[in-house]
Structures are given as C-alpha cells and as structure tokens.
C-alpha cells in the first residue's frame, strides 16, 4: 500500500545536487559492456589447443575404424573360385 505524505516546505534539489548523480560516461560504459560481442572461443589459446587435440583424436579414431573395416571385408569372387 502506498502512503502519501504532505510536504509543506518542499525544496526541489538544485541543478548542482542532481548533477552529482549524472554520469553519461558510466552509462555508456555499462551499455558497451552489455552489447559487446563475446570473444570467439577459438581466440583463446587454451581452448584453441583443446580443439586441435579433440580434432586430432577424432581423426585418429576415424582412421583406426577405417583400417579395421577394411581388414574385415570379404574376399572377392575371383579369390573364392580359386
């Protein structure tokens, strides 16, 4: 619930009083921080290294599977006939 208080000798704050709270630089900085685009992950050296290692492991695993699959292939028909 709101309460209304009668102010008989209301004194409006002066321009000087209000100026203390005025700071466009601070406001602008807060805005820039909020809207700043996040740095891409790969620009972080540690994350970049981790991504390279993951890619390398994935390539090695894929190679290993390809080799195994190749060795399991059935002999060709010509070989069967002999």
């Amino acid at each position, binding site marked *: *619930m709101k309460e209304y208080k*009668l102010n*008989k000798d209301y004194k409006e704050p002066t*321009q000087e009083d209000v100026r203390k*709270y005025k700071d466009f630089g601070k*406001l602008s900085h807060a*805005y820039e921080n909020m809207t700043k685009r996040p740095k891409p992950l790969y620009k972080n050296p540690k994350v970049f290294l981790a991504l390279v290692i993951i890619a390398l492991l994935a390539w090695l695993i894929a190679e290993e599977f390809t080799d195994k699959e190749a060795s399991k292939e059935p002999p060709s028909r010509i070989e069967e006939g002999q």
Partner: protein
Amino acid sequence: MNEAQMIEAAKTDHKYFAPLYEHYFHQIFLFVLKRVGSESVCGDITSQVFFKAMTKIKSYKNMGYPFSAWLYRIAINEVNMHFRKSNKHQIVEVRETDVKVMMKELDEVEDADAKLQRVLKHLGTMGDQDQKLIELRFFDKCSFKEIGLILDISEGNAKIKTYRALDKLKKLIGGERV
C-alpha cells in the same frame, strides 16, 4: 538538431544518446524522487531508467508524443520494480500546492492541514491505477495525452479514467462526512 533527429541519431550509435540524457536527466530525477524520497536511491533508479531507454531506443517510434512521456513510462516501471524487489512500503511526497489544486477539482473549499492529510489518507486506500492517474495529473502535471502514453491508454480514456478516479476519491471523502 531537433529532438526527433537526436532520437534517430541515438538509434544508430548510443553515443548520440548523450544530448537526450543531458536534457531529460533533471526532469526524470525529480519525477522519481517524488516516488522514492531518498536522493541516492533516486540516483540509482534514474540511471537505470536511462540505461533501459538506451537499450530500447531502437524500438521507440515517434507518435507525436513528447519523448519525456516515454521516459516517464520506463521510470514508473523501474520505481514499481524497486519497491517489489525491496519489499518496502512506498511513501510518496506531495507538495501542499499540488494537493490544493486537486482539492479545487474535488470542489473541496476547506483546505486546512488536517483536511489535506485526510484526503491523502483516502488516496492511499485507492487502487493502483487510480493513484497513478491522480499522481500524473495533479502531482506531475501531465497532460491527458501524456498520461495516455504513459499508461498505455488513449487520451480520451485517460481523461475519463482520471475523472472517475476523482469521483471515487470524492465519494470516499463524502462517506467520511456521513
């Protein structure tokens, strides 16, 4: 550069928001101060109002209303949010001269201190929307056009609702006399 051009420039780069900030800061500060009392709290809320305005200015459309009305609307929301978050009791400071103007509108001739206090006490028991209408009209001296934009209703509706709110207040005062 006129105001409309300043707004358009601020939409392209936030640094051009500076002249609008300079021009309206004092006005919005006073508007918020009436509703929160403390100058330091008011400073924080006013900064938040301009921060919100800066982030939302791209969606602002010039409909022929003063830019201040849009800022008042943001300010009311910020003040409400402040009291909701802090769970504090809101005290609105009202100038004696403003209450006297309202008393004239209520056809109340007596304007002794005790009477003014009682009218304000009744105002405190009214609904949120009615209070906002009376505050904007009599304590902030907004036009019905501005009230309409601030409360998101038409100008005509703002006028009707304000006079209905005054009628309700009149009945509350009348009920006290019986």
